[in-house]
């Protein structure tokens, strides 16, 4: 009977859930019995096949992965972003003026961001979690029901098995089933935009240069990957995006070439393009007795700068620290007074990030002359003010705000 009892049950074994499990187990070995419930079979996660998706990790996220012993496994596959160009030139203008240029390699923290394939990061997190005695991975498996009582919570798995837990973490994504089961209310905002994502191989080296091109239909981001490849995150009106996705490879490539320009030479699509709708969900609360939301389940936001995962990792780091501090006082991990500290820490940050993302999207996703002038003036001024530019750099690197220890590269 005791084997079915856990201190922490993590619903969702993606990046945030695994990072939390590792954070707890490595910061306080032998303290938390942790179960991670994941839909994907372990063999699939272990195989780590390329799925065309990549993530941008901030410098702070890299520090965290180093502390968790995961970074070493992905370092060779992580492309450092050494420069970021931000532009909003019209496509028909051949020479694109750069509004703002960040030469990130000169910063004291090194590169601002690193681009890694999703599958490689997931494989490394799994490999690390599988070797830790305090973590049990239950996969392929899902949570069918939860019952939260005053002194404990009961989790019923799809297989019918029942587990007892002190604390449940909903890390099961933007459409979190656990969030719904626990009765959290959300604020939702749907856009009529789709994000097209894909990987492009190119002839000439990218020199670690990322480009954020603000087009009237939405931002078009080119993120450098290892082996002369780039990851595209391309926002379009839904109807246009669907038309592009329906094109054959040559047709799609022509559209991409039009937007990328000729800097990288001849292009080809690796794998295929995929898309997801851009929407924002923000939960009104992040915690209730015995349950907390983390990552996209708490704040599923489309981030103009591809910051979604980094905010999720910040949740994992803050939650780790709050639970470890509580455990050192003997507190129950499901204790609301413990969890409220996590909510205070993360909710305001998430809400303000959501509003910033929405405001930037409105500012740039517009072809009106006056707005174009405002942002050219604005960004041009930032470019000439080293201190303000430094702030944006640190913000982009995830190094602003009250940082949890893991994001400074320390165990909690």
């Amino acid at each position, binding site marked *: 009977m005791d084997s079915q009892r856990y201190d922490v049950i993590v619903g969702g074994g993606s990046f945030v859930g695994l990072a939390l499990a590792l954070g707890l187990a490595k910061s306080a070995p032998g303290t938390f019995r942790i179960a991670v419930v994941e839909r994907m079979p372990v063999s699939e996660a272990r195989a780590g096949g390329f799925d065309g998706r990549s993530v941008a990790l901030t410098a702070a996220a890299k520090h965290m992965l180093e502390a968790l012993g995961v970074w070493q496994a992905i370092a060779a596959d992580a492309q450092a972003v050494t420069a970021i160009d931000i532009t909003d030139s019209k496509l028909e203008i051949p020479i694109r003026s750069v509004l703002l240029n960040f030469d990130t390699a000169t910063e004291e923290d090194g590169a601002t961001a690193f681009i890694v394939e999703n599958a490689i990061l997931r494989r490394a997190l799994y490999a690390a979690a599988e070797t830790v005695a305090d973590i049990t991975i239950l996969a392929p498996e899902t949570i069918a029901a939860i019952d939260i009582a005053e002194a404990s919570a009961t989790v019923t798995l799809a297989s019918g098995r029942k587990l007892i837990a002190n604390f449940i973490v909903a890390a099961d994504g933007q459409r979190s089933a656990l969030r719904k089961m626990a009765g959290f209310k959300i604020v939702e905002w749907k856009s009529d935009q789709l994000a097209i994502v894909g990987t492009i191989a190119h002839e000439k080296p990218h020199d670690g240069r990322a480009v954020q091109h603000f087009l009237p239909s939405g931002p078009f981001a080119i993120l450098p990957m290892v082996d002369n490849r780039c990851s595209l995150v391309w926002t379009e009106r839904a109807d246009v995006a669907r038309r592009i996705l329906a094109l054959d490879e040559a047709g799609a490539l022509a559209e991409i070439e039009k937007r990328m320009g000729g800097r990288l030479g001849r292009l080809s699509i690796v794998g295929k393009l995929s898309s997801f709708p851009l929407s924002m969900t923000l939960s009104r609360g992040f915690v209730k007795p015995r349950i907390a939301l983390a990552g996209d389940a708490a704040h599923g936001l489309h981030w103009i700068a591809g910051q979604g995962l980094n905010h999720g990792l910040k949740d994992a780091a803050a939650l780790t620290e709050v639970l470890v501090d509580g455990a050192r*006082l003997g507190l*129950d991990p499901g204790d*609301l*007074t413990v969890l409220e500290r996590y909510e205070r820490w993360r909710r305001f940050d998430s809400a303000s990030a959501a509003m910033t993302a929405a405001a930037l999207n409105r500012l740039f996703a517009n072809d009106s002359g006056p707005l174009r002038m405002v942002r050219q003036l604005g960004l041009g001024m930032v470019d000439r003010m080293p201190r303000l530019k430094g702030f944006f750099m640190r913000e982009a690197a995830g190094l602003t705000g009250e940082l949890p220890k893991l994001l400074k590269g320390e165990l909690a």
Partner: protein
Amino acid sequence: MNIVDNDEVERFAAMAGDWWNPTGKFRPLHQLGPARLAFIRDEVVAHLRREPRPAKILADLRVLDVGCGGGLVAEPLARLGAAVTGIDPAAENIAVARAHAEAQGLAIDYRAATTQDLAAGGERFDCVVAMEVVEHVPDVPEFLRSCAALMRPGGLLLVSTLNRTAKSYALGIVAAEYLLGWLPRGTHQWQRFVTPEELRGMFRDAGLEPIRERGMSYDPLRARWDLTDDCDVNYLSSAGRPVA
């Protein structure tokens, strides 16, 4: 003289169902938890010379939680490895504490008893904890003598209570009970509050050596209680029983 005030016992027994509701009548005690536990842990580490880091920092220690209520302090101490006995004069509280510990998978020896009952049985503990109890007992010197009788030589007594100052009247009674509604009205009688100086004198009369005092202050911005040097309202105090 009776060591417990029957009216007080009945008042707490009537609220027993609310002990573990983090947003209910005992919310202030839930919020005080981390600061009180930090004091207990740090005093035990310093005085009973434990290694500061391991997860089960209180392993192999016998700890008595006096006036345990629903077990808000007893459970964390058990999680830190202590063999905990929790006593409370109200059987209703003990029933709630037992049910909660069982659901948590914690083994805690809960008994509806007073310190005098235990002392009569000749039991001895490494550490006796009495959190927010002193302000509810009719005869504090007698209560402390009964606690001292339950400590092994070299053992530690940890007490938290409210100071008797103008500030504690304003914050502890007027604000907490009447303005903010943090506590049910009539929870505390200010005249019963004991100052740190008085407590030190009573420790000595009971044959104990006062060790340390720390205040607890509420930080409204971070919505939490911190240990401070300001003992004007809520404070914690430690005393040791000499070996010889």
